[in-house]
């Protein structure tokens, strides 16, 4: 069984990130599963940059604590990660840079600097050397790397391609030279399924296109920005219109205009930008304009830690917006769920005519995973664009001699809380989408009765949603386990891995993973928690926000909590360790 973790580190601004992605892609092309994670400062240069890839020949869903191969482009990398090394970890480094004392580790000395000086290369090419060397050490195939280089530098001409390839080869040769033990950790696998290597942001971007989203507006903000980059770069192919607006208020209001005009529309941002959109979210609520909001969190408050991860915006996003209006909040647990739930979000926004928030975070948004091409294809085949009560044509009104255009009852009170929504521009009708309280025909009102009716109508949508589209948490693991983990969103993968490891120790656990976060179906969820088990909440924040939401909505209180809020994702070891302590406590 192959399962190792490779990490490269160096000074920020020298191509570490690209190198990491290329490594992940190579591993995937060779037939392996990957989970990766990047650490970088909110600086363009200076500071430390590191990229970690876990590779396995079976399904994996989180990182692992031990680093098996560490590529140190500088000494800091070694110092920072020393505590995660095992005795026989492989260290690829340059002895001209620094020395590693003692008998630990398998040391692979590659004279990066000297080679670059010899071949008159640039400093960034350290990466190419390092990747070549890594492949050699791991017993990998160089070809995929060479192909990727070719594609990457194609536009810059043959010479550039060849130069870079020569560095890759040189690194590979050096690596082979320095490797005594032959490994098959990256040996090319046969009969491999076709796979994609994508981040959560990529998954959102792909699914938005599949869902026929035609308008995307954004203002760059880490960790959501690559959605903007993706969708903008695909514009000519997909025909989507992408607007990088002057600020987030303009972003959401352009999208609302677009959605009013009939196009599926979305916006993307992080907590700070989302905060600026909150007034307009309320506008979407009262005017009943569909919108998908992609909110990729980073640790706050305020500017916080822009390039790190946290699940800190849950309660904020749920209650965001003044006044009372329905919204739906979904939080995918991984790339696959991001694909399916994004598709669903666009349908829900149209069906219920309200804002749907997709909650992500840096860990999910910027980390890569392998996703099988089959999975995506079957999603594409199954996906139906459901626009609910949106209508794009209507019989011309017949009103006697002069055929005057007629007002359309945009906010008609109905049993399910949803009214027909007419495409603006359809001949013979008109109506206004009103930010004031309004009558069924959209005109402003301040009268008590219609006000009450419209509030009831809007609130009703939630009930309809709960009946038709809400989904209970997924359950993983053993129904008869004594311990039940409860988590949401991006913490899914790490809990699954912790469960696996615990099972190896003969500890059976169950796991409720929520991705339909709001609204919640009180009675159904209460049922799930009826059994007398030990529940443990796992969240990447300091308040246990989902635990509080669960308490509010269902009265269920989870007292045991594993909370992490230092900007880093939770490691499976942290769950297992915590669990041990708690367990021993119970016993003592």
């Amino acid at each position, binding site marked *: 069984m192959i399962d190792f973790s490779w990490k490269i580190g160096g000074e920020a601004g020298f191509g570490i990130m690209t190198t990491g992605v290329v490594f992940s892609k190579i591993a995937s092309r060779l037939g392996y599963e990957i989970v990766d994670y990047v650490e970088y400062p909110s600086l363009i240069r200076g500071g430390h940059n590191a990229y970690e890839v876990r590779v396995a020949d079976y399904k994996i869903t989180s990182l692992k604590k031990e680093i098996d191969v560490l590529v140190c482009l500088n000494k800091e990398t070694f110092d920072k990660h020393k505590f995660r090394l095992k005795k026989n970890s492989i260290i690829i480094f340059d002895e001209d840079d620094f020395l590693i004392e003692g008998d630990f580790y398998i040391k692979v000395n590659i004279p990066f600097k000297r080679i670059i000086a010899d071949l008159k290369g640039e400093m960034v090419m350290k990466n190419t050397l390092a990747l070549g060397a890594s492949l050699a050490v791991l017993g990998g195939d160089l070809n995929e790397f060479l192909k990727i280089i070719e594609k990457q530098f194609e536009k810059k001409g043959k010479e550039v391609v060849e130069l870079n390839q020569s560095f890759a080869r040189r690194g590979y040769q050096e690596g082979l030279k320095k490797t005594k033990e032959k490994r098959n950790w990256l040996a090319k696998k046969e009969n491999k399924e076709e796979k994609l290597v994508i981040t959560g942001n990529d998954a959102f971007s792909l699914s938005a296109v599949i869902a026929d989203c035609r308008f995307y507006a954004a203002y760059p903000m880490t960790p959501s920005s690559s959605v903007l980059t993706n969708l903008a770069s695909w514009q000519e192919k997909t025909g989507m219109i992408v607007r990088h*607006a002057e600020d987030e*208020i303009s972003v959401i*209001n352009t999208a*609302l205009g677009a959605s009013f005009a009939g196009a599926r529309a979305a916006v993307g941002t992080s907590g700070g930008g989302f905060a600026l959109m909150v007034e307009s979210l309320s506008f979407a609520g009262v005017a009943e304009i569909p919108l998908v909001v992609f909110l990729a969190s980073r640790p706050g408050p305020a500017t916080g830690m822009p390039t790190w991860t946290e699940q800190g915006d849950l309660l904020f996003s749920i209650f965001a917006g003044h006044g009372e209006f329905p919204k739906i909040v979904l939080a995918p647990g991984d790339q696959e769920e991001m694909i399916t739930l994004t598709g669903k979000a666009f349908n829900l926004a149209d069906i219920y005519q309200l804002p749907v928030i997709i909650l992500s975070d840096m860990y999910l948004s910027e980390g890569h995973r392998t996703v099988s091409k089959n999975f995506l294809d079957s999603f594409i085949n199954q996906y139906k664009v459901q626009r609910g009560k949106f209508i794009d044509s209507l019989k011309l009104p017949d009103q006697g001699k002069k055929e005057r255009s007629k007002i359309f009852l945009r906010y008609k009170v109905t049993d399910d809380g949803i009214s027909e929504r007419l495409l603006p521009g359809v001949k013979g009708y008109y109506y206004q989408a009103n*930010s004031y309280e309004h009558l069924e025909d959209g005109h402003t009102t301040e009268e008590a009765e219609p006000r009450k009716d419209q509030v009831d109508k809007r609130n009703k949508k939630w009930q309809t949603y709960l009946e038709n589209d809400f989904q209970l948490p997924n359950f993983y693991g053993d129904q008869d386990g004594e311990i039940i983990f409860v988590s949401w969103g991006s913490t899914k993968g790490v809990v699954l891995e912790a469960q696996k490891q615990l099972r190896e120790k003969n500890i059976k656990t169950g796991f409720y993973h929520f991705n339909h976060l709001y609204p919640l179906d009180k009675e159904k969820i209460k049922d799930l928690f009826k059994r007398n088990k030990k529940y443990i909440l796992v969240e990447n924040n300091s308040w246990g926000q989902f635990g509080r939401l669960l308490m509010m909505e269902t009265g269920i209180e989870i007292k045991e909590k594993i909370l992490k809020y230092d900007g880093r994702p939770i490691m499976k070891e942290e769950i297992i360790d915590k669990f041990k302590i708690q367990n021993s406590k119970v016993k003592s």
Partner: protein
Amino acid sequence: MADIQDFSGYNPTWCPGCGDWGIGIAIKQAFVQLGFDPSTVAVVFGIGCSGNMNDFLNAYAIHSLHGRAIPNAIGIKLVNHHLPVIAIVGDGDCYGEGGNHLIHAARGNHDITVIVHDNRVYGLTTGQVAPTAQKGFKSKSTPQGIIEEPINPLITAIANGATFVAQGFAGDINHLINLIKLGISHKGFSLINVLQPCVTFNKINNYQYYLQRVYKLDQSYKKEDINQAILKAMEINEEKFPLGIIYQRSKPAYHEQLSQIKESSLINKKRFENFDKIIEDFV
């Protein structure tokens, strides 16, 4: 062919004598003369006495948030660029709360027409200063007189890429009708600043005040000369108010520069389904 009645919603609740009456009539008249029908035009209203026109004017419309009409209008235009899109806004709305959107919409030359009710006060919130208020103007929020100088929206728009910048007067409806028609017909970003007496909260900039200080630009005025236009627009700082098109140039509108919608509007396009074309990047 639609007539005035087609566009007439509720009876306006503006104060008798308010300049908004004149603007309301001018807009409806312009729509009629342009051959529009309530179902063939999109209007976005801001929040203010100005924006209250939402209930008096029939059209496919958004009654937006305070300050946000412009981005809404841009969104509509990009999706359905065959619809004429007009934003009807206040000076607090468009130059205060939403000031940033004005600049950036101008830069993009988005093909929308922004009609600003310049009454130098916040009417609907009962009389605080707007960014257009004259220095020293006393109001509820500035009882000692406002310290800020008035904004110069005309220059701000011209210098930042607007291709149609005009000034009208609520007291000269015929002139205004024409201006609005020209603004809507212009392909690109049109700003029409309309001098509008607020008879209730602005006792200084009333009809008399303007009648003494407005004048019409004549034939000899070269509206395509940007330097001249800017100097012309400077006059409002000296309380002289040129009426007419202060600046106009022809330049492709934003939506005309999008290859995506060369063939058909965004809303009418067929769904994109060639997904493999984008998936290949990720293998």
